[in-house]
């Protein structure tokens, strides 16, 4: 049976035909699925979603249904396989479009047109359809043909140039931040378009780039450039001192400490015993920052990062340990908040998947298992779309549903 509607999330009843792959599209549709939308992920065994090939794998064994990376990016979706290079496959895709409220894609520019799923055709199938296109640089403009990865978005948005130390070159963050921010913007765009459609009855084609959301979230830095303020400033903050990371006991262990104002400083001075009138004001702390940081580092160096962070926080000074992946995975705050959701998956077994970072007072969030490759073909094509089982068998045999 199809899973449409068994869990009444706040987006229950919303239907998504998801042709997107890898990260930038699937993360948006994961959000919608976690909130109760029915998301049907369209893939092809002939051209696997690269996410399915990304480690880590269950028991370290590479398999298209065993990637943990793919799993956390695709929770709660149903999976079908359609060969979009086959005319019969395209006809099946059109049936999904007719069923859907929203179609999502992140192919190269022009691909949807070439396979017969252009915006005009989608509208002719369903006049109020919402089409979401996610790409590196957007669907218009001189760079609209650019095919790239997260690094391209970091490079073209200024994010890489804004990252780093003032005495060194740009820094490329070791994860694709564009694949984080763009899907969130895509989710906002879809929800706003749905609200617009609720009021007006009109659909629309949404064009979300990876570059523009990265510029949005650094608006303050881009403004600082034009104000004559150095934007690449490592861990410094012009409004706070101390503001940085201080060494703690053990190799490569650090604690982040932020003194927001003079009152914070008085508390920290009392705890550390650093008592010097030079440091009483922000201006003084900035002027003597080198001395102050050295004194503070000498005090933190012998302390456990977690205990130090708890001690300072309890006293009212913002401080947190610089956590690694292990620390984060076992963080009690996440446990209490229900950040991880237990799922059962035929290949991965019983495991935990991160869920949305929020909760509703009157609605549940259900994080379901990710789809097996083509695992819901019969449920979707026969049970949901009402196709003849024999016809589906034939399309499967000819490769149209592969």
């Amino acid at each position, binding site marked *: 049976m199809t899973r449409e509607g068994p869990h009444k999330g706040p987006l229950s009843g919303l239907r998504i035909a998801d042709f997107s792959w890898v990260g930038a599209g699937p993360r948006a549709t994961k959000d919608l699925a976690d909130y109760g939308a029915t998301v049907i992920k369209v893939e092809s065994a002939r051209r696997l979603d690269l996410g399915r090939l990304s480690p880590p794998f269950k028991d370290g064994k590479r398999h298209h249904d065993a990637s943990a990376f793919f799993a956390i990016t695709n929770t709660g979706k149903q999976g079908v396989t359609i060969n979009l290079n086959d005319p019969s496959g395209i006809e099946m895709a059109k049936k999904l479009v007719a069923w859907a409220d929203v179609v999502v894609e992140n192919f190269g520019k022009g691909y949807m047109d070439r396979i017969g799923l252009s915006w005009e055709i989608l509208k002719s199938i369903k006049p109020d359809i919402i089409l979401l296109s996610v790409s590196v640089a957007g669907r218009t403009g001189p760079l609209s043909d650019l095919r790239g990865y997260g690094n391209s978005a970091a490079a073209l948005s200024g994010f890489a140039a804004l990252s780093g130390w003032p005495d060194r070159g740009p820094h490329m963050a070791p994860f694709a931040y564009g694949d984080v921010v763009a899907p*969130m913007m895509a989710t906002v765009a879809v929800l706003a378009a749905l609200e617009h459609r609720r009021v007006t009855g009109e659909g629309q084609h949404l*064009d979300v780039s990876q570059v523009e959301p990265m510029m949005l979230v650094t608006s303050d830095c881009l403004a600082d450039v034009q104000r004559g303020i150095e934007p690449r400033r490592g861990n410094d903050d012009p409004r706070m001192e101390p503001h940085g990371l201080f060494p703690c006991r053990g190799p490569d262990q650090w604690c982040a400490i932020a003194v927001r104002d003079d009152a914070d400083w008085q508390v920290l001075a009392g705890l550390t015993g650093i008592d010097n009138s030079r440091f009483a004001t922000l201006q003084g702390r900035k002027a003597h920052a080198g001395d102050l940081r050295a004194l503070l580092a000498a005090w933190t160096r012998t302390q456990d990062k977690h205990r130090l962070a708890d001690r300072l926080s309890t006293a009212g000074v913002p401080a947190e340990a610089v956590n690694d*992946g292990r620390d*984060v995975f076992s963080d009690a705050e*996440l446990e209490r908040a229900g950040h991880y959701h237990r799922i059962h998956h035929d290949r991965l077994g019983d495991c935990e998947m991160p869920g949305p970072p*929020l909760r509703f007072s009157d609605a549940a969030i259900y994080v379901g298992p990710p789809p097996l490759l083509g695992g819901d073909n019969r449920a979707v094509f026969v049970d949901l779309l009402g196709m003849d089982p024999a016809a589906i068998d034939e399309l499967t045999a000819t490769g149209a549903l592969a």
Partner: protein
Amino acid sequence: MLNHLTIIDATGELGALAGYMLAQLGAAVTRLVPAGGETTDPVWNRDKRCVAPNDADLPALLSKADILLRNGPLPGVDIADYPRLIDVLLTPFACTDRPATDMTLMARSGLLHIGGDPDREPLRLPGQQAYALGAIQAIIGALTALRARKDKGQGVIVSAYQSAVLANYREPVMWDWAGKVGGRQGNLLVRGKSGVNQVWQVADGWVTWALVDNPGMMRAMVALMQADGMAGALTGVDWENILVADLPQETLKDWEKLVGAFFATKTRAFLAEQSNRHGMGLSAIDEPQDVLNSAHHAARGAFVPFNDPASGRTIRVPGPLFRSNREDAR
């Protein structure tokens, strides 16, 4: 798109972006200036009507509002008196009451541990990214609750910390599934047994490119180097039948010396143009001024003028959140 919605933005620095985004989508946003004064960068308060708390008739505002954005209790306000309201509480932590800044949230999320160079302390991302992630999640929560609203609204609690943890999509998973803890690699991309450089100095700045397992991209770059007689040992590499990620580090270093020497003779514009033409997977790293002056961004109307009260000048700031075929709707 959201011209029919009314928003009250009672947040501080954490959340001001959410109000701005809703204003960009057409909603009427009233910003309650925080007690003690506004410390938020004015770029996040564009297109809002700002009122001092003492001047605001809060009950009247809230009775007309669809969405309230806040970081904590509003003095004298019982949210239960406004049953249709979508009440979004954006806090540093969902379950813990402790002080936080953007940097401390990022530290706890694990994102700092992997950022920066191995010979220095961990490095934060530019700007206030935990705050930004929390703010965008707050809008997702608000609009999701709005879609579910029938006769009554509901509360939404959003954790900025958890929003940052979600952005750290590799490290907790690598620990859970592979027992591995990552570290700082500078600008090396480490996949498999070796690391490859991602950031290169060229004649007039920086570009991003890497030796990766993409034979088409690698062949295109080597062909370009051969045209200048600078491909050396890269000539004749059978990209289809090697796994770059598992090559010895010394081999990669030798190859990267050749690439670095070639890049040093070329400009960003030349390399980017060649990459677009031949599919080399290279991008010029734009400095902020390049971004502000980009023909691509200009063609998309990505920046708009803003009378900046902080500098007293008109500056350019990011404008539309995304594009739509219905520009009147956006």
